[in-house]
């Protein structure tokens, strides 16, 4: 096949594109996994964008202050989890509208980081670069794409199968799913529904915080206002696109990462793969397509629909 069909791509180009595709989707992936865990437990959290920003700022600030990668990542996870705790308090304890509370969290994150981060704009800080995995990194194409990445990218790749397994095969996974599918039944069988929902929401927040830290420490080192630039919203679209399955989210995230990288790559050869507006709208358009498809068939709805109690308040006394 002529190389021109692929815009002059050779194997080395493909390897570099693969590496970029995987790396550039890391923040979206981590945030999406977190949201999947929260939503499978029944809590809708539209505050991903805010939690990404809070994590990015906290991670950057802690990294710049201490120079310690673990402290930086810990601070990012804590910031995300704390923000999620706020959402959980409103959503799970008080039972306010989860859409409203989540959106408020996104606004809060954007505003708060804008104010708190002013002095850190343009400041130098910790950078977490790639950590090639010894022999594996030398494999053709795959080595560069999968085994020559920053730490959090490995986490994003590994978490999908781990979460998938946990949902399917562990008691904890069953408990989480029960809270999201039928909270009353779960409660009746002795599951502390509200505690589980708190835990899952905070876990989701911690992952989103790490996603933010990936941006401010690895991908685009440094703090900038509005750094996440809509990645949180893409992650939310990704959760629906993936029909609440971690492995599908991994595929979806990588697909969009690859599309963006391929688009740029085509442009260097003077061609355009898809119009830029089409690419920007793609996560949302494809999500709507998946939603429509799932809604259209009862069978698909049963296996790929949202958790039955998603966004619904649960109170032990009814």
């Amino acid at each position, binding site marked *: 096949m002529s190389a021109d069909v692929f815009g002059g791509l050779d194997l080395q180009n493909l390897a570099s594109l693969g590496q970029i595709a995987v790396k*550039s989707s890391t923040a979206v992936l981590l945030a999406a996994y977190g949201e999947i865990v929260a939503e499978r437990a029944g809590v809708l959290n539209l505050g991903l964008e805010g939690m990404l920003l809070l994590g990015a700022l906290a991670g950057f600030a802690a990294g710049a202050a201490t120079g310690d990668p673990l402290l930086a990542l810990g601070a990012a996870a804590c910031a995300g989890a704390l923000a999620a705790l706020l959402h959980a308090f409103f959503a799970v304890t008080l039972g306010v509208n989860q859409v409203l509370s989540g959106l408020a969290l996104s606004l809060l994150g954007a505003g708060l980081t804008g104010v708190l981060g002013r002095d850190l704009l343009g400041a130098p800080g910790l950078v977490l670069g790639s950590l090639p995995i010894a022999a594996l990194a030398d494999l053709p194409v795959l080595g560069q794409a999968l085994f020559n990445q920053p730490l959090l990218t490995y986490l994003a790749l590994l978490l999908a199968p781990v979460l998938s397994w946990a949902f399917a095969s562990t008691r904890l996974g069953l408990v989480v799913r029960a809270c999201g599918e039928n909270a009353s039944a779960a409660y009746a069988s002795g599951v502390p529904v509200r505690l589980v929902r708190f835990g899952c929401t905070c876990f989701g927040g911690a992952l989103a915080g790490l996603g933010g830290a990936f941006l401010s420490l690895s991908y685009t080192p440094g703090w900038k206002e509005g750094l996440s630039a809509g990645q949180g919203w893409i992650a939310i679209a990704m959760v629906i696109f993936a029909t609440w399955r971690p492995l599908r989210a991994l595929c979806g995230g990588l697909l969009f990462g690859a599309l963006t990288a391929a688009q740029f790559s085509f442009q260097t050869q003077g061609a355009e793969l898809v119009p830029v507006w089409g690419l920007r709208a793609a996560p949302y358009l494809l999500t709507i397509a998946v939603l429509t498809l799932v809604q259209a068939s009862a069978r698909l709805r049963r296996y790929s629909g949202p958790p039955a109690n998603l966004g619904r308040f649960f109170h032990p006394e009814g």
Partner: protein
Amino acid sequence: MTFRKPCAALLALCLFFVLALPAQAAAPGAGKKIRAAFVLLETINDQGWTTAHHDGIEYMKKQLGDQVEVSYTENVHSPADAERVIRNYARQGFDVIFGTTFTYMEAMYKVAGEFPQVTFMHCSGFKTRPNMGTYMVRVEQGEYLAGYLAGLMGYKNVGTVATQPIPEVVRGIDAFTLGLLRGLKESKTPYDADKVNTVVWLKSWRDAVNETTLAEVLIGRKHDLIRQMADTSDSSKAACMKGVAAIGYGTDAAKYGAACALTSTTFQWGPLYTDIVRKIMGGVWKNDQMFVGFEGDGVGLSPFGKAVPKAVRAKVLSLKAKMGKGDDMSFAGPIVDQAGAVRVKQGEKAPDKELLSMRWFVRGVSGKLPE
């Protein structure tokens, strides 16, 4: 539990108030001084366009001391918002209002008609009124020198992270490419005359994530130098992390972590602002279309990076001195476009009108201009 909904509503309300109010900085007025207001696109520490304007404001304040009183409003993104902010300043009796980005043109034009006693200055636009002028820096001069520097160093396959396809950016890319070609000829580097500078569009002024992605794609495609054009220096930083050279844009990229930057083209609004306010003070202001390059310190080059050899520095600086004396060769003919048609004839220069509406690429640029 009836308090749930009001509780959430209250929370949302509070947030909107916290977030919706743009930051304002105003000093109390005293005595007879010029009151100048600035409407800014982003925050003053955005590291790019707005930071450059803020540096200019600070420069002017230093020059004029307590003869001038300054207010500014940040984060004014939409024309509708701009109209509100501009009208507010006019009502408050400011002597001069500066609109620092192209987006505000119509809004400023409208408000200027309502307040004939106030002076309006619009950055990078083309509409004027008796009380409204425009000002812009000659970005092409800095770009030409930056390209010349890269060419002298033998970079012949540049990757440009381009932003929005407006004339200012297009003529920047063209000037950079013309300078690059001149440098390549002088350094006797063999090159592909159709493709020394590959341009890919972000379709955004700042988007750190995609700037990085695009820079990495260009590096993967074996481009030897990354030309940053976005506000933030992330494409330059991505290049540095991959061991590839970079040139910054608007503000000094090295200051923001791109240590490998050979140089950055900088926009210097301070001399312009000082000049405009002085003219208003002296009652000699006219609704000019001010357009300032090296001769008026409107543009500059940041300190050279370590990798730039002494001989190259000397050559670039001597060309810069020429431009400083008013000898602008950035768009001196003969210039041919991508299709090979002569756009500027031998012995001629592209007129300002052409520069301000440029919609074509010179030969040497690889890439398309989106519609």
